[in-house]
């Protein structure tokens, strides 16, 4: 089987799962009463007063499959409902709040992957030495820390205590300039890139300062997983016959580790990258809430009704659907990369 054929086959196999994700979210909507389901489509107070009309228009009292056809039709047109907490249709709110989240992810993912792989190898090569014990203990600690508590502690130490790295996305001066002065051109929505394009370096610096603590939080929680997998696959790889061969050829330890062991050990680590995506989606929900960053995660958390308010159902369901699709697609990409790197998968 060639790579192209493998890719096509995987994509076809993913479609039923995607459909399943959509069906599950639809099943969740069926747990609500028709009146609650009507809130998916209510955008104004006028409609609020005449809920029965909305129910009739979208056939919310009809049998399940009729409802599904209507709901799925709306979904295909990009109508995920109206979000009260986001003040707009779910899809456009999602797109509007995405850049803040993307910025956070762009900073934490490379650190998690590179540092995790490096520490995993280091730990495996020095197995059962003090370095190994320290790295593993630190990673277990990172795994056991509640994300939100770590965030709160970091705020207490670095912001309230030392006055160094503030929470939120921008300082008040930068916020004024970006949102209120009218001089700002949002090219990409990412403050780091837009700051350069607008020629306002001080905004880049400000945004970077605000990213330090959330990035540390996300990295601490995520790194344990990669580190652990990398360590054990490196240990396995170091025990293989080809390593003994390489050593007996008289290669240096460095060459054996970098050229022979590491390459093969990296392959299993790739599978974890899919899990990393799930962790990130969860991570940003908590991290953005703690640091008060206006991204999709905090929006979903607010929508779920923190503080005893009525939940914003369309927002939560829209976010869940989005998270499910992102996760499925991420796993598909990992599968394809896996086949690309390891011919045994696509040929076997």
């Amino acid at each position, binding site marked *: 089987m060639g790579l192209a054929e493998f890719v096509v086959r995987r994509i076809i196999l993913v479609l039923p799962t995607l459909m399943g994700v959509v069906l599950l979210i639809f099943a969740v909507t069926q747990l609500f009463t028709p009146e609650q389901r009507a809130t998916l489509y209510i955008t104004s107070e006028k409609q609020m007063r005449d809920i029965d009309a909305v129910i009739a228009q979208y056939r919310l009292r009809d049998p399940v499959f009729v409802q599904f056809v209507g709901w799925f039709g709306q979904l295909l047109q990009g109508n995920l409902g109206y979000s009260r907490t986001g003040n707009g249709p779910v899809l456009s709110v999602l797109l509007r709040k995405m850049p803040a989240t993307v910025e956070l992810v762009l900073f934490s993912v490379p650190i998690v992957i590179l540092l995790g792989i490096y520490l995993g190898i280091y730990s495996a090569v020095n197995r059962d030495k003090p370095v190994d014990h320290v790295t593993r203990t630190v990673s277990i600690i990172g795994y056991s820390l509640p994300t939100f*508590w770590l965030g*709160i502690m970091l705020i207490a130490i670095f912001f*309230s205590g030392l006055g160094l790295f503030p929470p939120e996305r921008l300082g008040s001066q930068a916020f004024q300039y970006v949102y209120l002065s009218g001089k700002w051109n949002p090219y990409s929505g990412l403050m780091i890139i837009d700051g350069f394009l607008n020629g306002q370096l001080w905004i880049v610096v400000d945004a970077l300062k605000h990213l330090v603590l959330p990035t540390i939080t996300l990295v601490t929680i995520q790194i344990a997983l990669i580190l652990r997998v990398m360590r054990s696959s490196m240990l396995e790889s170091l025990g293989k016959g080809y390593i003994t061969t390489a050593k007996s050829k008289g290669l240096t330890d460095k060459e054996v580790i970098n050229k022979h062991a590491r390459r093969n050990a990296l392959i299993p680590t790739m599978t974890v990258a899919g899990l990393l995506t799930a962790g990130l989606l969860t991570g940003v929900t908590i991290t953005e809430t703690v640091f008060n960053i206006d991204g999709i995660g905090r929006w979903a958390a607010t929508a779920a009704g923190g503080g005893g308010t009525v939940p914003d159902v369309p927002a939560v369901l829209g976010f869940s659907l989005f998270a499910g699709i992102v996760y499925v697609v991420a*796993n598909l990409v990992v599968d394809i990369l896996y086949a690309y790197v390891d011919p045994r998968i696509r040929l076997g």
Partner: protein
Amino acid sequence: MLDEFKFTLKRMRKSPLSIVGIVIVSFFVVIAILAPVLAPPVDPRDPYAIFHDGYGPTPRPPGSPILDSFILSTGWKVHYFGTAEGQLDIYYGCIWGARTAFRIGVLVVAISLVAGLVLGSISGYFGGVIDEILMRFTDIILAFPGLILAMALVIALPRLWPIEFGVIGIVAASFIVPMVIGFFYPKLRGKRAVILGFAIVVAFAIPYVYVLGSPPIYTIALDLNSLDKVLIALALVGWPGYTRVIRGEILRIKQEDYVEAARAIGASDIRIIVRHILPNAIYPVVIMASLDIGSTVLLAAALSFLGIGSPLGYSDWGQMISYARNWVWTGFENPWQFWYTFIIPGVFIFIFVLGWNLLGDAFRDILDPTLRRK
């Protein structure tokens, strides 16, 4: 299995980290059991509600005297760990929070484990269409990040659950009737009894539902508080993982000679699964469960932190930290002025989860076939 157990114990004695794990977990077991002694409830009808000494917003430091005369009359003198927002006693919440943590962790994992055992066995042993359907279903649930699906489920689950005794009767009958048939007519045991029993149940159930309707007298409403919803949501998110692991184990063991031998002497499917396959399949799953208790408690704490977990004022560590958040933000002059509101409950969660993770990690190292017995 006994050999495995002895081997595990032997290895655990050599690993200092796993001993730390055992000590931590036992420590919390003791706290949870002794909660009524360590922190006698002020309102015995509702021991999980943290008592509050007035309603003042500003937290008070550890050692502050209790002012409320009613609470004083129950024997409490000081707030050992201080008070949180709304004068909720932190010490009381932390002690009873241990019970909440065990309840969430153990119950959610137990429900997922049992569901996984039943569905995984069926899926792995019988294969075919059932297997295909179940596996696609687990695929769908596993396609969501756990916290996010749990969040959606918590807000979607209705608070009141009408329990239809008729429906319960039908479900119970579909288990009992085949058993009775099998008992009296041994020739019909196994698949045939199940099919026959199911047919009988359906024959009675259809007239019940469509002709008699559901008389309201048979219905009671189960009132779920928000913590129960969290339990249900987390169990719904948790079972697919177990189902898949058990299915995999069963597929592996099904090929073994002793299973063939059991089949050859005419043992029934259920007997083969329960007596021959599960004892050999269950070990890795138990390890998975011990690791999962920690992460389940973390997930529940995160839901509480987002404000959709336990009800207000409930003894729950995650919720106690979420109160404390405001007091970190506002403490500009002295951020550590209210340290007790967020550090104490945070340390409780952290140590609890750490204990389970150390235990699970030690187990995993012991059981990892590539690293063991060297």
